[in-house]
């Protein structure tokens, strides 16, 4: 079992390397992290937090967009691509279970995400600590951001596999992935904000709104990191709601979502008829 999963992971790594996905993911994370750490170091003095913690708050807002995007870009082709190329029927005649195929792909894609995240956050941390050695006290927050980013990425990899299994072709899967990214990461928050403004402190704001934030893996990720770092002051918008929601709730959402999305991916892939 482990051998077959590793075999698939090695093959997927070859493909990702040839298709420049490794390079693209790493470059995206490094460039944006460095830009943010440069821009985010200005307002430190006023907040009384160390520099790195402030950079982590900025990186949290960046990762909410970037990590799901990179994960979906890597995963939307996983099943639909095999179907469209005609490679799936042959693969499924091999003595390998479908979930083992998905697990192999997940392993490879997660490994790439981990490399990209560490490269990006690492670069930001090095730049920050070099300019202000006292920023070392923010390393705990950075570590928290790193492992939660990996979990967020795994969640969206699973969602990407599920969409890839549901779609009728690669282009359809790409469309679904981008649509879902826009919906969950961008429009969801805008919709919630609009509802909160309209509700003006009513039942929606106190009851529905916190649950809605926890239900979205991207929002749960942001909430957890901002609450844990008590950096809500540095954040704006939806992040400001972090105070109202206990830490264990956002942590649970972060931990449960990868299992949920990967379970969903395995279920939908099982129903694909080659």
């Amino acid at each position: 079992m482990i051998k077959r999963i590793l075999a698939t992971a090695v093959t997927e790594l070859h493909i990702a390397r040839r298709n420049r996905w490794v390079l693209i993911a790493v470059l995206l994370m490094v460039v944006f992290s460095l830009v943010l750490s440069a821009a985010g170091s200005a307002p430190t003095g006023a907040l009384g937090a160390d520099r790195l913690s402030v950079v982590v708050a900025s990186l949290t807002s960046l990762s909410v967009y970037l990590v799901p995007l990179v994960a979906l870009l890597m995963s939307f082709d996983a099943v639909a691509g095999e179907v469209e190329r005609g490679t799936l029927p042959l693969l499924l005649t091999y003595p390998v279970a479908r979930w083992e195929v998905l697990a192999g792909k997940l392993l490879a894609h997660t490994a790439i995400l981990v490399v990209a995240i560490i490269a990006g956050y690492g670069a930001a941390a090095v730049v920050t600590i070099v300019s202000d050695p006292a920023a070392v006290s923010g390393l705990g927050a950075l570590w928290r951001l790193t492992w939660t980013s990996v979990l967020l990425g795994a969640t969206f990899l699973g969602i990407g596999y599920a969409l890839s299994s549901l779609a009728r072709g690669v282009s359809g899967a790409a469309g679904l992935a981008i649509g879902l990214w826009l919906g969950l990461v961008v429009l969801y928050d805008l919709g919630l904000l609009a509802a909160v403004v309209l509700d003006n402190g009513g039942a929606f704001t106190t009851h529905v709104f916190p649950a809605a934030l926890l239900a979205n893996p991207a929002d749960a990720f942001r909430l957890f990191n901002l609450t844990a770092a008590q950096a809500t002051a540095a954040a704006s918008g939806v992040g400001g709601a972090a105070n109202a929601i206990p830490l264990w709730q956002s942590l649970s959402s972060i931990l449960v979502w990868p299992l949920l999305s990967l379970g969903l991916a395995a279920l939908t892939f099982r129903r694909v008829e080659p």
Partner: protein
Amino acid sequence: MTSTLTISHLTKAFGPVRALSDVSLRVDPGERVALLGHNGAGKSTLMKVILGLIAPDGGEIAVCGSAPGQAGARAQVAYLPENATFHSALTGVEQISYYMRLRHVDPAGAMDLLDRVGLAFAARRRIGTYSKGMRQRVGLAQALIGHPNLLVLDEPTSGLDPVSRRDFYELLDKLAADGAAILLSSHALTEVEARTDRLLILSGGRLVASGTLPELRREAALPVAMHVTALNGYEPDILAALPDAIRVNGGLHLTCAQDEKLATLARISALRSKVADLDVIPPSLEDIYSYFSRRDGQ
């Protein structure tokens, strides 16, 4: 000897279309069986059912003692899809190594395997740069991994040049000699005529014929054609003696039923002094094939 593949009363429908109805067949170890049929006759569907990729609606199938698609069956069955495709970013050796690992075979042998199908020279190139025939050979190489007991080959020689086809059938002969059962579909009738032990003809999802070529030839009882070339000036005499003959391209053409063959030959040899040449033309595989595929259904 127990058979490698046994199918009884298999049916499969896609909505209102009956892709396979009441198909029964068996393939024994070491046997090379050709599956013939028009496009849409159900060949690929039958293969996918055998491989466990499609679930049948009814009937029983045993593949190497297991149900199709079960781990036990998959470990012993190799498949070569029609128009084999692979990820274009992988090299030949990477792709074959992957398949070897999935079968728990040491990937160190990947180069040897590619060499056996004549692809060693391109093993480290991306499959995206391969020609159709080269991709087909990668497909063939993966079907050879780990000594399978049953090979299911969907039009394996399409896209191969004549020399590669000959090499391919030599490979199959060796596999069959080692005890592997082979089920292959093909459009190249003359090719399977010489290279397989038994023919199966599918038509409209039904198995309409099964047997060796001589058996099928007898069963079809198609007329034998004879072409007689007369010595100069004797044509009218021969026509008088053989009133069924007709004049075709400077010769005389006549047909007779299988059981009249010797009698007809005797009549011709009685005219020996007037005949320059005689050709006996048995019904071709094409004739037999179209006889069976038209007889029932279609």
